[in-house]
């Protein structure tokens, strides 16, 4: 019972995190591509509760940042005007998962003030908003690629395990080949062959397909193992003796046994593929400007001056942490559950 509660907790936590990213338009105060050109590399803003005279305000407020005189990178707070934070404000239009359009944002401040919780990047774009929108790309890439890998792994693993013989040999040797490939270099090679002038959407799909196609080997091997033992069970043999077709056997008796393994694999693969997307985008092989992803947001850290001067540019990297912790806890919990069921 405790185990079950734990699993539910982890799943609801992950679901919450995903919901925030999915609803980026609502949680982010600004559009991911909106440039505020007067404020490049503005540091994260402070939310104030105490005003100049030391009075406490329940509603936090911000002071607008203004460039320091004669400097393009130094900023200071303009303490002459305070702008209280507003909640449920109307702002830039957005759409949620392409389903419906809205203009309502969780928070904001009265114009002309702006709230840059995590500061801005080199184009004066709100890093917090970009981080949420960037998560959409990174998470979706991770989920879709994991789905693709698992589907491929399930089919190929089941065929190899169920039929054995030359099909098994061929597929498993192929899987070993894929496991041995230095995948990063392979991705570079594939990307080099493809046309360079592709839009962000195509680049994104390409990324998913490439990551997903390469990763089928490990789930396929696991599925094969499970199928191999499942097809020798007495009730499977009995069903076969009664004249059940292969499709029926797989669907009714064999594949259901693999679901536990698959789920655990999914929980392991998703963060791995999120990281793959981050890596590829970091190296410039992912989606391009101005569409954000966690990887291409971190890419600016390749430049020494960003590293040396603007610490808040690291923040998108921390977004990965709760997701990774959540997924690995999920994998553990699932693993325990699967073990319990099998035993």
């Amino acid at each position, binding site marked *: 019972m405790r185990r079950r509660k734990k699993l539910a907790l982890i799943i609801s936590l992950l679901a919450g995190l995903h919901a925030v990213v999915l609803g980026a338009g609502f949680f982010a105060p600004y559009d991911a*591509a909106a*440039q505020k*050109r*007067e404020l*490049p590399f503005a540091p994260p803003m402070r939310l104030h509760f105490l005003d100049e005279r030391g009075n406490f305000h329940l509603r936090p407020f911000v002071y607008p940042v203004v460039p320091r005189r004669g400097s*393009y*990178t130094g900023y200071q707070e303009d303490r002459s005007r305070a702008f209280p934070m507003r909640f449920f404000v109307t702002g830039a239009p957005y759409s949620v998962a392409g389903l419906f359009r809205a203009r309502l944002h969780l928070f904001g401040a009265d114009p002309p003030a702006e709230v840059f919780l995590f500061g801005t990047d*080199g*184009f*004066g774009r709100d890093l917090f908003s970009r981080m949420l929108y960037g998560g959409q790309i990174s998470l979706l890439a991770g989920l879709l690629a994991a789905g693709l890998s698992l589907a491929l792994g399930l089919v190929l693993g089941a065929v190899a395990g169920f039929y054995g013989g030359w099909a098994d040999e061929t597929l498993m040797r192929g899987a070993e080949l894929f496991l041995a490939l230095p995948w990063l270099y392979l991705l570079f090679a594939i990307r080099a062959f493809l046309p*360079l*002038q592709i*839009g*962000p959407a195509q680049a994104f799909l390409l990324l998913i397909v490439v990551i997903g196609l390469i990763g089928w080997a490990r789930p396929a091997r696991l599925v094969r193992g499970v199928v191999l033992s499942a097809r020798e069970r007495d009730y499977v043999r009995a069903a076969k003796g009664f004249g059940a077709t292969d499709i029926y056997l797989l669907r009714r008796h064999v594949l259901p046994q693999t679901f536990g393994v698959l789920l655990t694999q999914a929980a392991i693969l998703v963060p791995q593929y999120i990281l793959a997307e981050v890596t590829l985008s970091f190296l*410039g092989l992912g989606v*391009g*400007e*101005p569409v954000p992803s966690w990887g291409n947001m971190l890419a600016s850290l390749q*430049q*020494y*001056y*960003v590293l*040396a*001067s603007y610490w808040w540019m690291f923040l998108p990297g921390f977004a990965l942490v709760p997701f990774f912790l959540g997924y690995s806890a999920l994998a553990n919990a699932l693993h325990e559950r699967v073990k319990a069921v099998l035993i």
Partner: protein
Amino acid sequence: MTNCLLRDLAALLAAAALWASPESLQKPVEKPREELLLNNAEIGRYGGQLVVSLRSEPKTLNPVTMTDNPSKEVIWRMMADLVHINRFTQQTEPALAKSWKVSPDGLRYTLKLRRGLRFSDGHPLDADDVLFSFQLYLDEKVHAPQRDLLIVGGKPIAVRKLDSETLVFELAQPYGVGDRLFDGFAILPRHLLQKAYSEGTLAQAWSLTTPPEQIAGLGPFRLKQYVPGQRLVLERNPYYWKADRKGNRLPYLDALVFLIVPSEDAQVIRFQAGDTDVISRLNAENYAVLERQQQARGYTMSDIGPGLEYNFLFFNLNDLAARSLPQIARKQAWFRQLNFRQAVSAAIDREGIVRLVYQGRAEALWGQVSPGNKLWANQALPRPPRSLDRARELLRAAGFSWKADGTLVDAGGDVVEFSIASSASNAERTKMAAIIQDDLKQLGMSVHVVPLEFRALLARVLDSRDYEACVLGLASGDGDPNGDMNVWLSSGPQHLWNPGQAQPATSWEAEIDRLMQGQLTARKYSERKRLYDRVQQIVAENQPMIFLISPHVLVGAKNGLGNFRPAVLDHYTLWNVEELFWRGK
């Protein structure tokens, strides 16, 4: 007075005419037979070494075949030319030639060599070495990249020797650059290169692995050691022909060390750590990082104002009929419309680029000549501020319209969408492209930025012509319009928007051709300026290139480096390396 062009320049700038430089500056010192050139820089102290970083290993040490920047940077510390353009004043001054005369028709230059000079291996220099050097540069089989500069009026310049120290250069027609012609042609030792030349292996001569004693030049330093992948060490040339006011032979420094540091970031870190003494070619962001610590770390950064580099956006205006690029050919219907190009120009936020990409260390640009090039910039060019309204007006007048969601469509109802290629290794240009992308989005244009590897980008622009628009930058060598002939002539290989045309594609390109040819042979500066002003005006009106910005030249040096006078011309920091010295502690 012998040199018309020089006189004009001198009058215009009130700069010292070097022909008339005081006798005392050229009187022989030390050995009576040797005519050293005395200079006016601060008198320094001998000793010490200067460490600088190079972005990559030089490809060669051969001045006849050098094309890459690192090679030039090293080679010009070891070589010298007959007449030199002072990188600081941008005026010519005597170098190996102590004086020269030009005939009244401008067709014949008579140069007198400085007496008693020796190569860095001690071998004496005479007129035959000069003849030999120009023979190499002019030989078609050698493929010297400088060769084109010696072809005037379709004929190569003829070089004759009058006596062991007098040479005559004969031109087929007057040459607008005048004595600037001689800058950039290193005089080479015949005794070391004759063999390679007669064997036809000159292109392979003087590689990095050549033993140092087989390389000699007339520059302030000579090769001492090369450690592959790490460094090149040059040592003082004991026979160098310049001295300070007191007659101390230059250079002051014992050694010049080039470290191979392959990226700008690594160079910045090495400079910050004190491993290198001088830094140049750095971007504004890195400059800001270094500037913050200059007190604590004991170096000084300086912004010496706009350089000669100009950055621009251009559209593919090639005739693509013979190439199978239907997608691009369709979009050219927009690119060819003057209104379209003008609208793009009006929508670009140049000040935003200056601020976001260069932190204010750049100048917005409306013509090809950077404000840093005061001799040639056309000050009368209009500098319209950014105006989206004007851009929309221009587009509307050309038949474009907007859909309900703000998307721009052409008269045929096609959505206006194109890509801008930029060099992936140049973070600034990619950032500029991203800003332009956002600017044009406000006109309803859908623009993709495509960062490409630099050579792949050039191959697309110059050869396959498979691109839609591109952000690039050029730097005019010494600021003279002649250096940009290959950009502005419609037949030029770097006429980027439509290179190497057999016939000028448009009437304005034909007019630019005429004007550029005219300035080539006009002998008065005022006349050349008038012609080049008109070129700038035509280019600004027709917008084949949409000029963006010209970055400042940013440099830094350790404190205590005497005579450090960075210049906006190339080799920004090392052009006067012979004068540099370390002040005592």
